[in-house]
Every structure is written in C-alpha cells, then in structure tokens.
C-alpha cells in the first residue's frame, strides 16, 4: 500500500469513527413510523377570560391544535364565536404564547408547529366576544416520526337503532386530512326525525362528545367537514320525539 493510500484510508476510518455520534437514529432518516397521541383540553371560559393546559412531548415532533367545540353550557348549542388559540410554554402562572390564531370551532388544524422535545402549553382566551361563559374542547394532536400510516379512506355503514331518550354512537378514524361526510341514509320510519352529532371520542369510556349537530333531520340529511387525521365519532340520538325504538343507517365517508 502506498503512503498516500494509507493516509486516505486512515482519514476515512478516522472520520467514520470520530463522527459516529451515538444519537444517530438506528433507522435511516425519513423512515421513522409516526406515533400519534391526542389530549383533549376541556374547560369553561368566562367572558374576557383565559385558560391554559400543559403537555409534554418526549421527542421532537409536531403539534396540531383544534378548537373542536364551543357550546352554551345550559343548552349545549354550538356557539359560533371567535376565540384566540395559542401555543407556548408554561411560565409563572400562565402560558407564554409564541404562536396563536383567532379561531372558530372546527375540525381542521388551526394552530400547528414543529416542536422540540419539552413541555408546552395551549392557551385559550376570549377577546371580548363571549356574552357568557362557554364550554370548550380543544384537541391537542401530537405526532412524532415522519412516516404516517398508509391512508385507508372508506365508507363505514353505521346501522343500529336509537331508543326514546337514548343515543347510539360509533367511533372511527380519519386516516388522512380531508373531507368527512356523514349522511343519514335511512330510517325504519321515514317520517321520524333524529339528531346526528359529530365529535370526538372522549376516551376509554365510550360515547361521543359531539360538537356539531344536524338537529331533527330525516333520511337524506348530510354534512361535510374538513378534518385532520384523527379519531372522530358519530352519535345518533332521540331529539325528544321518539315513542318507540327507531332503526337507522348512517353512512360515514371518511378520508
């Protein structure tokens, strides 16, 4: 081996050993399977008030915030009011916001950001538009990794029955961002009416924290919403007019 070849080989070995940082991912960059975690921040906001919620992300990732619902505490009616939703860091007795947006209730990502591992907070506040206290639900979606699961859009047939004063719910996943369409396809009594709600599963207890309603509707009623990749639910309930169990078929066309 010539001297020049020896030096070149040595430098290559040197460079390889010196820069073998043990923080290098064991899998090639760009092939880390995505992990998603969702937290729901529920609370009541007073006029001109604010609140915050803290969460921790263990590794670098991405956060998406959505004001899913804003409702009248007494009637449950959706309030179409604008609130400020912010992302920041807990500081003293508040949340020091670094990015924010004025939002109305919806299902899309309203504030999103790439964040490093650490502790963060979501802050919700009213700039004066709330006439009275209101219940709210903010979905915090945390994603790590950069290879999302393969989307499997499709249509779910939700066929069951609802009893007087009762409700029936079904949870499902939107496997990618897109448009969700929910349609009441049929009722065993076509003249009957039901309420259909779309919302977020509250957790392991089942049920559906519905935040968007089609009230007193019959066959053919539908609604389409822009949603982010996350879990949702549909609930069918008696609007107060049923006198006997009612069979229904709801088609859930999810992205």
């Amino acid at each position, binding site marked *: 081996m010539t*001297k020049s070849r020896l*030096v070149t080989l*040595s*430098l290559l070995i*040197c*460079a390889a*050993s*010196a*820069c073998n*940082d*043990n*923080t290098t991912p064991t899998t090639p960059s760009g092939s880390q399977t995505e992990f998603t975690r969702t*937290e729901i*921040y529920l*609370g009541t906001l007073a006029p001109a008030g604010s*609140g*915050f*919620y*803290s*969460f*921790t992300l263990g590794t670098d990732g991405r956060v998406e915030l959505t004001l899913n619902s804003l409702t009248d505490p007494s009637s449950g009616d959706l309030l179409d009011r604008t609130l400020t939703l912010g992302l920041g*860091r*807990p*500081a*003293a*007795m508040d949340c020091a916001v670094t990015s924010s947006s004025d939002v109305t209730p919806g299902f899309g990502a309203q504030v999103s950001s790439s964040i490093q591992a*650490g*502790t963060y*907070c979501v802050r919700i506040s009213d700039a004066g538009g709330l006439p009275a206290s209101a219940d709210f639900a903010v979905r915090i979606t945390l994603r790590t990794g950069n290879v999302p699961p393969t989307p499997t859009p499709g249509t779910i047939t939700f066929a069951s029955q609802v009893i007087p004063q009762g409700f029936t719910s079904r949870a499902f996943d939107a496997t990618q961002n897109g448009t969700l369409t929910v349609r009441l396809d049929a009722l065993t009594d076509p003249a009957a009416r039901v309420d259909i709600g779309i919302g977020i599963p509250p957790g392991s207890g089942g049920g559906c924290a519905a935040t968007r309603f089609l009230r007193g509707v019959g066959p053919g009623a539908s609604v389409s919403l822009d949603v982010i990749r996350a879990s949702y639910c549909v609930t069918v309930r008696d609007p107060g007019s049923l006198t006997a169990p009612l069979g229904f078929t709801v088609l859930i066309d999810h992205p």
Partner: protein
Amino acid sequence: MRRHVPGIRALLVACLVTAAACNGKSSSSSTAPTPAPATQTESFTATIAAGGSTFYSFTVPVNGIISITLTSVQQGGADVGDALALGVGVPQGTGCNPSVQVSATAGVSPQISSTVAAGIYCVQVADPGTLPAPTTVGVSIAHP
C-alpha cells in the same frame, strides 16, 4: 520506518481533534457533568382556598440544582403555622404533576432541593385538607 512517525502523529492528533469536534455533547466520558448551582431566584404569592391548590411554572435552562422554600403562610394577614403540601414537578394538563412532595410549614430554609435536567418545572402548593380559611402563601424558587 522512523521517518513515517511524524506523519502518523499528525494524523492521530487530527483524528482526536476531529473526534472532539464531532462528538460534541455526546462525549464518551463517564464523568457526569457537575450540576449548575442556583443563580436565579423567582418568588410568587398566591391565595388558595380551603381544599384548593395553586402552581407556578419556571424554566431551568441547564442541568442543575433547584431549591424550593415555602416562605410564608398567612390567614387574614397573620402568619400561621399550618402545614401545606409543597411539591415540585412538571406542568401537566390544567395543573402541576408533582414528582416530589413534602409537608411544609413556612421557613427560611429550602424544604425541597433537587438536581434536575434542563426543562420546565412547576411548584405546587396545596391544602392537605386542614386549612380553615383562604390562605396566602409565599414561595421562593432558586434555580440555575
């Protein structure tokens, strides 16, 4: 052979320098860095209702030592000797999730001292169930 030694030495030095430059914070040294001492102090006062609690978040920029002191406990403007639950942890949800908690009365010496990694932490003061009335508390936090 002898005439090759200087070149090999130079290569070895260059390799070591490169290793040091590349390794950065992932040093292979087995000696843990000395925790930074407390250089800043934050304090807060708050009033907690009977059965209630309060918390305060603070940032520790580097690994180091934090010390928490419950400095005052007052009811109606007068000092009282009630013991409260004093904890330190991480902000979580709408509160503070303490990982260390002690029963403390007001004093001048830290009731909690701990070595922590850089990050955001919180101090929580809670009524253990014995407060007869709203109580104003003062807390001092020393951290790097």
